């Protein structure tokens, strides 16, 4: 289990993470969501023992990360967002070196490396890591994170540079390791990706955890709030005049004014239809969009902001 207790980190008096308290049970895939600057990476750096909190504690498996970093690091596998390796070494040599740092002997390192490189689709690649694409490095990063068979896997923006096949492989691997009872923490701003793999989501905004729960629960909780904003798409055969309505929040016309995206505080589809018919504009389609992942997410920020 991962426990964060009033975790706070300040940089030059500015709170990057502010009084963060939560628990992540074993076997969960926890998605840490938030825009740039929300405090995701800082939280992860504190979880991995790379930086110390200004106050509060991170506990992994009951061990305080700041007080017992070596034992904690034995239990975790970490892949940073900007994953870096030794360019003059091959993937196997990199993994063997890191394996030695976990106390594994060289034959065990080589055996584990071969297994993991096959898992992430890098088997048979013998060139030095310096010649790898970003996607290949990310695959290698995932292999590195699994090297010591950790109980907790912490991944920062794991799919940022992956191709569709790489993303599919990543999802398969993460789902499999969670099935084995391991805890996975995934930090990302790609909502779709988090919703696909995460069992629980925590949303960070300005260093604060503003929501946590399963994605389904989160969406349900938000539905009332999201219903107050309606997105309406209109397509017409003729160019539209300016539309005016008291409930209009925003309106974005296409270049030829034959399409428009309207956000309103109520469902004003009838009013729009009447106005367009009165102006002699032929309507091709008029629809209300459902609550998207992005809208749910943004709605939280509007509340938090």
């Amino acid at each position: 289990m991962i426990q964060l207790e009033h975790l706070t980190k300040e940089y030059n008096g500015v709170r990057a993470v502010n009084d963060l308290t939560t628990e992540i049970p074993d076997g969960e895939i926890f998605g840490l969501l938030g825009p740039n600057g929300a405090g995701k990476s800082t939280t992860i750096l504190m979880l991995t023992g790379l930086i110390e909190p200004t106050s509060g504690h991170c506990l992994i498996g009951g061990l305080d990360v700041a007080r017992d970093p070596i034992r904690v690091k034995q239990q975790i596998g970490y892949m940073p967002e900007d994953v870096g390796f030794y360019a003059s070494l091959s993937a196997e040599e990199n993994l063997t070196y890191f394996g030695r740092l976990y106390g594994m002997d060289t034959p065990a390192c080589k055996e584990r490396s071969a297994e993991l490189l096959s898992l992430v689709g890098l088997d048979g690649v013998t060139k030095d890591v310096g010649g790898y694409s970003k996607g290949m490095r990310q695959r290698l990063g995932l292999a590195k994170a699994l090297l010591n068979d950790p109980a907790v896997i912490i991944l920062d923006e794991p799919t940022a540079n992956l191709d569709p096949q790489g993303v599919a492989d990543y999802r398969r691997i993460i789902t499999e390791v969670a099935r084995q009872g391991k805890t996975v923490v995934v930090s990302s701003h790609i909502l779709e990706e988090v919703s696909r793999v995460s069992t629980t989501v925590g949303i960070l905004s300005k260093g604060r955890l503003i929501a946590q729960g399963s994605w389904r629960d989160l969406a349900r909780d938000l539905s009332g709030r999201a219903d107050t904003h309606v997105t309406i798409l209109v397509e017409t055969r003729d160019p539209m005049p300016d539309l005016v309505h008291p409930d209009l929040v925003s309106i974005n016309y296409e270049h030829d004014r034959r399409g428009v995206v309207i956000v309103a505080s109520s469902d004003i589809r009838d009013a729009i239809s009447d106005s367009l018919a009165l102006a002699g504009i032929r309507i091709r389609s008029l629809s209300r969009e459902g609550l998207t992942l992005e809208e749910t997410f943004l709605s939280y920020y509007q509340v938090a902001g």
Partner: protein
Amino acid sequence: MARNGLTTIAAKEFFDHLHSRKFLLIFGILLIVAIVGMIGGISDYNKNLEDYNKHQSTIDSPLSSYMAEKPSILSVFSSVATYLVFVGGILGIAMGFDLVSKEKESKSLKILLSHPVYRDEVINGKALGGIAALAGALFVVLFIALATLLVYGIVPDGNELILIGIFGLASFLLIFAYFAIALFMSTIMDESGSALIYTVIIFIALSALIPTLASTTVTELVIGNPPELPRELIDQMQQPANTSEVSGVTVTFASKGNNGAWDEFGERMQAYSEKRQMVYSTLALFSPTMNYDAITSAVTQQYSSRAMVIGSRGSTTTTAAFSVGTSGDVGLEDLLYPIIASIIALLLFPVVFFGLAYLRFMRLDVR
């Protein structure tokens, strides 16, 4: 699981250095200049030895007892030291300037520190790997130098081997000093390019600026000009004169005249020289290059006047003191005593800069 972070990191760094193109290139240059220096030194040594043997065969000459000093094998290393002071410094810098900054640039530092290793294991391992590679390189250079001696039929005795060992140790400390400076810059800079530039600036300051400041002209600006010879003594000198030598400085004085004035002038000169020597020696302590010069000069020119111990090559021109020099063979203690400050100073450079690098690395913000 056994804790083996230090040895794992040190071993990786060591082999990284051995496979590094820059290390191999500079090491190759170092080997070439060492061999060329040795051959030149051996040639001079053989010539001096021949002169010595000639003097021995003409022992009847009244001057023969003064001039007949058998040349030291260590003099062969004098020209090696001249090259080593420059190429060795560059080697130390080349091996240290990107040790930490390259990991910052490639983002591998974050990955490395996320492993179960203490930060001190990382910085110590990097330093140990570098030191081992430097020591190995220097050992090879000294081994080849000794082999060259043997090829030319010159066999050093036990004392000479000890002195060669001291020479090797001083050379190692010099290279280690610049390695530690480069490592320190590597920990405080985010980019290897900046670390290299600042290290080179420090190298120039320590190996060229300080010797320049310590030179006669600059020192005289600080402590003033040497005392002038009084007019009455100059007048006396117009008369037919005898010559006398005081520690290598030839002073001409009248055969008869004011001995008190001469004594007074001598005392003033003595005080001035001591003051100048003190300024020079103090400044020299702040330069690994000058300390190295002092040590290697003492080792390789062990039969020279004691007053010549501090700085005798290149820009570090010696200020001859008025103290009477001792000629002839000297014991190890006699040899080390005048240069003990230089040895300690040369030892302090790597200690201080590695200590700073250590402290900086332990507090490094990894984001």
